[in-house]
């Protein structure tokens, strides 16, 4: 055998070993489950679990906000078809109604559990991680079965799932297998014995079904987070809203909030704190609207208990707001725009109106190092969620149509450097970056 052939053989051997490792990593922990799946037939059409289990599943589906992705705007709930833009192409959500052809009609409970826990479809194919199975892997088998029972109780909708439009190589099973070997491991939720049952319930919901870190964490070039424990904030890919850190008091950390305030924000989308009104905006408004407003006070309280302890995990040296050491430059343009367009609601001194308009003075959403949300709220306006407990919200007008980038930059610079605010200046280029994104 020549040296070259030996080298080739060695390379093939290494490749083979790597491939075997990837395959092994992709099916680890599935031994018993495979047997259960083989031995379990999907229940016949029209099968119904007990009302109690179905109701629990419906509640869990709210906690997981499954409907948000698995419904198209204006379409039947859970029938899928929503386009989810990713840096790798567009993923279309699947049909979760019990339609035999297009939905879960031929799925068994253990197959559904395998999807949640192992990220594999009924036919064994690997699912794209746009489905946050890195989080749902933590869901208990009992909760998975309840979710399954609920989804099987829905009216079947014969709507075909649209094939994903991912770019090569991300559209291949091999790429998914490699990604999973690198970043995914099926896990059970491990309760922390040093913490209360309340804290552990909150951790289970936040890290698992709630999949909070799907937005509130940064992602690497291949779209992976550092796992469900990382809630350090991140720019939501393609959407360009910044999901602020839940572990940093200068962003959206709640270590110094009352538990009742956190519960109120998640329950109603708004809370009047001593410092003024705080509302959930952008994608978080949608989360309150479609998910957290339906959760029990006990579960929201548990989530609050868990979130309050996250501050301790944060690196206190990391600067969330870049301190503005220099005195602010004179900014007559920003000042005038503020007086003309903003002051009647937000006050001459950025003090806001309790219950209606957020204060801008001392508001961390205004001074945050990453200005994405501030820019977008001014460009697009918006309402806080119209939820019971905070109905008929006061609206913020969109200014993207009437003010140009220079105007908005001057205005935001004024907000970020006035009334004691210590934020950085905003440039027209930064404003332009967030125009026209959804």
């Amino acid at each position: 055998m020549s040296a070259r052939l030996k080298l080739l053989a060695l390379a093939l051997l290494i490749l083979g070993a790597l491939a075997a490792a990837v395959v092994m990593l992709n099916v680890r922990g599935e031994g018993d489950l495979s047997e259960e799946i083989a031995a379990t037939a999907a229940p016949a059409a029209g099968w119904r679990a007990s009302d109690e289990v179905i109701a629990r599943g419906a509640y869990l589906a709210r906690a997981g906000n499954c409907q948000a992705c698995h419904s198209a705007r204006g379409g039947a709930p859970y029938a899928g078809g929503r386009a989810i833009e990713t840096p790798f192409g567009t993923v279309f959500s699947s049909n979760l109604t019990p339609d035999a052809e297009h939905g879960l009609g031929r799925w068994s409970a253990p197959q559904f559990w395998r999807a949640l826990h192992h990220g594999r479809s009924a036919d064994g194919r690997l699912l794209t991680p746009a489905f946050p199975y890195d989080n749902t892997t933590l869901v208990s088998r009992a909760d998975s079965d309840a979710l399954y029972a609920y989804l099987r109780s829905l009216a079947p909708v014969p709507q075909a799932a649209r094939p994903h439009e991912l770019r090569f190589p991300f559209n291949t099973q091999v790429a998914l297998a490699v990604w999973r070997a690198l970043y995914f491991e099926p896990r059970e939720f491990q309760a922390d014995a040093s913490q209360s049952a309340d804290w552990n319930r909150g951790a289970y919901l936040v890290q698992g079904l709630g999949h909070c870190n799907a937005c509130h964490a940064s992602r690497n070039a291949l779209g992976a987070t550092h796992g469900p424990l990382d809630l350090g904030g991140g720019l939501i890919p393609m959407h360009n809203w910044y999901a602020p850190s839940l572990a940093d008091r200068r962003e959206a950390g709640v270590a110094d909030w009352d538990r009742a305030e956190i519960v109120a924000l998640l329950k109603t989308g708004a809370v009047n704190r001593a410092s003024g009104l705080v509302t959930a905006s952008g994608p978080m408004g949608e989360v309150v609207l479609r998910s957290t407003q339906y959760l029990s006070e006990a579960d929201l309280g548990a989530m609050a208990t868990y979130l309050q302890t996250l501050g301790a995990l944060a690196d206190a040296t990391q600067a969330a707001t870049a301190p503005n050491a220099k005195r602010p430059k004179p900014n007559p343009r920003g000042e005038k725009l503020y007086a003309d367009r903003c002051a009647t609601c937000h006050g001459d001194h950025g003090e806001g109106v309790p219950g209606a308009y957020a204060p801008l003075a001392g508001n961390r959403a205004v001074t945050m190092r990453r200005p994405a949300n501030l820019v977008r709220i001014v460009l697009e306006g918006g309402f806080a969620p119209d939820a019971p407990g905070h109905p008929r919200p006061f609206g913020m007008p969109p200014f993207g149509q009437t003010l140009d980038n220079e105007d908005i930059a001057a205005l935001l610079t004024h907000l970020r450097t006035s009334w004691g605010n210590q934020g950085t200046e905003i440039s027209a280029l930064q404003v332009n970056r967030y125009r026209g994104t959804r």
Partner: protein
Amino acid sequence: MSITHLKNALRRVSCWLPTRVHSTVLRGALLATVLAGCVAQAAPQFENTTAQRLQACTTCHGAQGRATPNGYQPRLAGKPAGYLFHQLLNFREARRDYGPMTSLVDPLGDAYLQEIGEYFASLDIAYPPPQAATASRATLQRGEQLVRHGDASQGTPACQQCHGEAMMGVAPDIPGLLGLPRDYLNAQLGAWRNGKRQAQAPDCMAQVARSLSPEDINALSQWLAAQAVAAPAKPLPEWPANRKMPLPCGGVSIEAAPVAGSQTGSSR
């Protein structure tokens, strides 16, 4: 006028009247007091009203929803409440395709959207003068013909058959056609024709718009935009007796308007 309104009005007056009325000497003497007063009074004139809540709408749609001159963000004031409500639903549920409206109304529930519709419907605001037509006489005649009589040969019903003789619509669900800019009418009929704008099924206006050629749409927009809005400039309060709609419309409740050739009519 509410007490808050009155208070705010008085505040504004007391703030700048002296500087206008008094002589330079007096003004100088009063300046400090007046300025102090103005600063103290400059707190937001906040009112816990629907109008206050809906400033998110009026920035683009004009004060009290009277429209702005650009021609694309239409008037809201005085349009029938049910029609406005249905449009808000259509934006929220993606039957109408305009991202900024969809993201604005996305977090709002049906009851609030209904309230928003009723609020703008209740506003009685003068209409702008008509737009001078720029089309040929033949085009305008075609437009008027379509509005008054339709064109049976291509399956186009007369606009007036549903939108009323005065073309100001029928409460609560059918909008008026006058007092709207030509660009807006063109854009909406065009969008309906190519499916960008939709309504609840059955989408009668889509059917009507598809029966029109681009030239017809231009003729309609030219003629409609050139008509003055006559008093009382309001939609008919109810569907006229003995009249049938030519097509079933998902956005119009059947109790309000029976459909020709149907006993029970369409479902909503």
